[in-house]
């Protein structure tokens, strides 16, 4: 097996006295789409943020392409090809859509900026309509698209997505997952954190189930979709 693009080895993370992640180990191979499912508060977002050292792992190792990045600065990590669309979207509220997209180009410089921006407008036509609008004035779905597009502007090797479906209308969720499927087919490595297990598992090659800061189960998307425990806990028994 080739070197995983991302690997967690027995990672512990604390928020003050509270342990958010316990001995988490997982790996993602280049080109894979992997999702992490689990209920609210299980530690999924913490896991994604810990890749950027916010908060830092107290124990264990986080490897990126075989290099230990556990103690690296966030901007070093971004510069080396990891991009994130974080929990709560965190678009820059007082910047226009175009400016937000430009902020995604920091790690690679803006030589491809206009070309990549055109690509984002093809992927998310709504953003093109709103290109000069300030992000704070847009709907949740549009902000989500913007957050994903901004992450893609850095041409990442590894794309981290935190709950891209949160709080969105079902039709918008469908659109966003269709776009993610397209991205996955281009060979991009995607690590997706979702409460919407149904969509996530259908999209993913493999998935991990997180409960109370620990990895409870792992398997292919299909296996987990068929698993009774997963069906009862995360798929509403459908």
């Amino acid at each position, binding site marked *: 097996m080739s070197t995983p693009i991302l690997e967690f080895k027995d990672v512990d993370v604390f928020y003050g006295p509270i342990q958010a992640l316990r001995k988490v180990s997982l790996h993602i191979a280049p080109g894979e789409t992997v999702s992490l499912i689990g209920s609210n508060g299980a530690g999924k977002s913490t896991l994604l943020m810990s890749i950027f050292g*916010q908060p830092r792992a107290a124990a264990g190792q986080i490897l990126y392409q075989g290099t230990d990045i556990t103690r690296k600065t*966030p901007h070093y990590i971004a*510069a080396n090809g990891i991009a994130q669309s974080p929990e*709560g979207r965190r678009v820059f509220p*007082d910047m226009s859509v175009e400016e937000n997209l430009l902020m995604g180009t920091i790690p690679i410089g803006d030589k491809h900026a206009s070309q990549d921006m055109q690509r984002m407008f093809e992927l998310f036509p709504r953003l093109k309509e709103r290109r000069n609008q300030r992000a704070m004035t847009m709907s949740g779905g549009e902000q989500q698209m913007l957050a994903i597009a*901004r992450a893609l502007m*850095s041409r990442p090797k590894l794309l981290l997505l935190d709950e891209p479906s949160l709080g969105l209308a079902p039709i918008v969720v469908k659109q966003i997952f269709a776009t993610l499927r397209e991205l996955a087919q281009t060979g991009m490595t995607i690590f997706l954190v979702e409460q919407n297990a149904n969509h996530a598992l259908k999209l993913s090659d493999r998935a991990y189930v997180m409960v109370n800061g620990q990895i409870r189960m792992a398997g292919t998307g299909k296996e987990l979709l068929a698993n009774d425990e997963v069906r009862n806990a995360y798929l509403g028994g459908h």
Partner: protein
Amino acid sequence: MMDGIFLQQMINGLTLGSVYGLIAIGYTMVYGIIGMINFAHGDVYMVSCYLAAIGLAVLSYFGLESFPFLILGTLIFTIVVTAVYGLVIERVAYKPLRNSTRLAPLISAIGISLILQNYVQIAQGSRQQGVPTLLEGGWRFDFAKGFVQISFTKLFIIIAAFVGMAVLTYIIKYTKLGRMCRATQQDRKMASILGINTDRVISYVFIIGAAMAALAGVLVTMNYGTFDFYAGFIIGIKAFTAAVLGGIGSLPGAMLGGLILGVAESQFSGLVNSDYKDVFSFGLLVLILIFRPQGLLGRPLVTKV
């Protein structure tokens, strides 16, 4: 009331206000990016007054006589050295405290303020220092109810301050550095996840603030000619008032607040009483804080979720 005094005080007010605006930029940008009032900023301005005098003296000593070269050389020297002060102060006194309580850098700033005052007092003496007038002459307009004088110095100050503000506005609005500053201001954690070295951006903000204060220092030194080690105190607090008036954290707010405060203060001293002009300005600050705490162009404070 369109008599000579009113117009004259309008001109004086714009001159004073553009200087307040320049210094207010440093307060407002630093507050915007790390949520801290940099109480040493007024003293950075004071240091720049001394640097301006040193620059002028050195350049004249080497026989540079023509005004444009003299002022350009002095500006470059003062801005560069003051920017270094801003950078070093941030690195030494504020950066190590970045993750401690909000009060810690504030106290550190007061410490730096005292250090700068005492250091300058020891190094340069406690007497007032001065420079000769560089730009003589001006225009005088006579009309029925009096006259108005615009000295070339005042004109130069207003123009230079506006050019400085215009350049900075352009940088913040349209350049990559400006976007990085705004991104760091709006969401520092996200900015770092996108690959921005936010510590470096914060340093740039201190450099920009110090550079603007340096521009103000050169201009004021040209105009009044005298200063001492305590010169940064009152003007620093006035500029802070201007920043609050315009809406602290807002760049156009700082410039607008500076102009409004300068004009209001000058009108008050011309038309009412010049002894109480400071009382008037700080009374204005109290009123703003009561009736419009977010300032003219600031946003109401919203708790971040």
